C-alpha cells in the first residue's frame, strides 16, 4: 500500500525532486571551489569558510523549496477531485494521511541522501586543511529534519478542510494587518503579534529555528 502511494507521489513530485538532487550536487561544488586543486594553503581558509556559510543558506533554501513543493504535490491530485477517491478507499482517514506523509518524507529523504552523498564526494575531492572536517552525514540528517518541518506544516494545512484553512489564513492575515497598522500609526513600537509569531516560529525551540542556524558541510 505504501509503495503504491509512494509511486504516485514520486510521479507528481519527480521534477522538483530531480531538480533538487541536481542542486544538491551543485551546492558543495560551488562552496568548495574556493579551494584550488591539491592546495592545502591556509591562505584560502577564510574564503573557503565564506563559501561554506553561503552554502548553508543555499541548503536551507533548497530544503524549504523542496518541502513546500512536495507538500503541495502530495495533496494536489486529491484536492482537484474534492478528495472523493481517497475517501472511497477502504482505510481510515488517518492511515491514508500517514501514508501520504510517509511518502513525502521518503522523497525528502532521497534529496537529503543526495545532499549527504554529493557533500561527501565534494569534501573528499577538495583538499581540506587539517583543522577543517567534513560532516556530510550530519548535514544530510539536518537537511531532512529541517525540510520535514515546513513540509509537515504545509502538508497539514493542505490536508485540512479548505473552508477551515481559509478561515485560519484569513484570521492570521487580519491579525497581522491590524498589527502592522497599529505599528505604523505609532500605537505600538513594533508589530507585536507579528514579532511574537516570528519569535515563536524561528527563535529558540520554535519549529523553524533550524533555519536560523548554519547548515555546515565543513566545519572545525
Amino acid at each position, binding site marked *: *500500500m505504501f*509503495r*503504491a*502511494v509512494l*509511486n*504516485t507521489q514520486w*510521479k*507528481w513530485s519527480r521534477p522538483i525532486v530531480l531538480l533538487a538532487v541536481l542542486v544538491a550536487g551543485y551546492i558543495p561544488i560551488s562552496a568548495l571551489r574556493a579551494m584550488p586543486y591539491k592546495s592545502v594553503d591556509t591562505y584560502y581558509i577564510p574564503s573557503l569558510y565564506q563559501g561554506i556559510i553561503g552554502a548553508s543558506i543555499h541548503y536551507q533554501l533548497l530544503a524549504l523549496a523542496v518541502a513546500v513543493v512536495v507538500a503541495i504535490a502530495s495533496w494536489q*491530485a*486529491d484536492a*482537484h*477531485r*474534492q478528495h*472523493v*477517491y481517497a*475517501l*472511497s*478507499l*477502504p*482505510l*481510515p482517514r488517518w492511515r491514508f494521511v500517514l501514508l501520504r506523509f510517509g511518502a513525502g518524507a521518503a522523497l525528502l529523504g532521497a534529496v537529503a541522501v543526495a545532499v549527504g552523498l554529493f557533500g561527501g564526494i565534494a569534501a573528499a575531492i577538495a583538499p581540506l586543511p587539517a583543522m577543517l572536517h567534513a560532516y556530510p552525514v550530519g548535514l544530510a540528517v539536518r537537511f531532512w529534519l529541517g525540510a520535514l518541518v515546513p513540509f509537515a506544516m504545509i502538508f497539514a494545512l493542505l490536508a485540512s478542510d479548505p473552508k477551515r484553512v481559509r478561515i485560519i489564513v484569513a484570521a492570521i492575515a487580519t491579525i497581522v494587518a491590524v498589527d502592522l497598522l497599529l505599528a505604523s500609526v505609532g500605537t505600538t513600537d513594533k508589530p507585536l503579534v507579528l514579532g511574537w509569531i516570528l519569535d515563536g516560529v524561528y527563535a529558540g525551540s520554535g519549529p523553524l529555528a533550524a533555519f536560523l542556524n548554519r547548515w555546515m558541510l565543513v566545519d572545525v
Partner: protein
Amino acid sequence: MSDAIALKHVAYRPAKEFAIRDLSMTVPTGAIYGFLGPNGSGKTTTIKLLLGMLEAARGVIEVLGHTIPQGAPQALARIGYVPERLHLYGSLTVGEIMDYHRAFYATWDAGRAAELRGQFSLRTEQKIERLSKGESGKLMMLLALATQPELLVLDEPTDGLDPVVRRDVLAALVEYVSARNATVLVSSHLVHEQERICDWVGVMDDGALVAEMPMHTFRSGIKRLRVSGAPPVVPAAPFTILGRTVTAGAEKEWGVRGWQPEMAAWFTAQGATLREVIDLDLEESFVELLSTARSGGTA
C-alpha cells in the same frame, strides 16, 4: 431478507438552502435498487453519507452490517463505488490506477480486471486525463467490479454516455450481479434505464424519500383515472389519491396509488363514473409522484 443498506431518521444540512430531513431508506440484500430523483434532490449527498464521506448530524446508517461512519473502512472494502464524476488521478495512466487501486483491496481480481479492460477497449498506457467521458465511465466501472464487491453503489453511472458505451457498462453490471448476486444501489434520473434493470425503487425529492417500494408495485400501482360526476369532497378511498386535475368539462383526471381493478365499485358508491383507467409507465409514475409530493399531497 436482511438489508444491505439501512438509513434511519438521517439528517444532514450541507447548505442553508438544502437539507436531508429525517431520511429513512432500506436496500434489501440482493436487490437492484433504483435511486430516482431529479437533479439536486439529494441522491449524491445520501450516497456520500452512506459511504462515510459525509457525517450525518442525526440518525443511524448501517451498510453491510457496519455502522457508518465508524465502520466505513470495513464497509468500503466490500463496496464498489462509481461516482457521478471522474474521481481518479488524471496524471496517472489506466495501468497505474489499476495497480494503485489493487493495493487497497485484498479482493482485487487481476484476471477479471484484465478481462474487463479488454472488453472496454482501454489501453494501460492511456492517461486518465485524456480519456473520453465514456472511457472514464468504463474505467470507474472496471475498478468497482474488479474488487468483487458485495455491494455496488453507482451514482449516475451512465449519465452523459453514448448509447453504445451505456450498453457496455450496463451489460458488465448485469453480468456481474447475476454471477455474484450482489446488491446494487444505482442512482439516476434516467427513469427508463432504471425500469429495465431495477427490482426496487426509491424516489427522492428535495432531501426527502417520497416513495420506496418494489419496482412491480411502483409500476403497476400508480394509475391515472378519468372520472366524471365525482363530488368536490370525497370520503376516504381504498386507494391513495395523489392528485386531481380538471380536464374536459366535469371530467377529472385522478392520479392514484395502490389501485386494484375491484376498487372501481367505490366510484359507483360515490355517484361518480369511472370512464377510463390509464396505465402509466415508470417515467409518468415518477412525474406523478413528484408533482404530488411537491404540492404537499400524500405519496
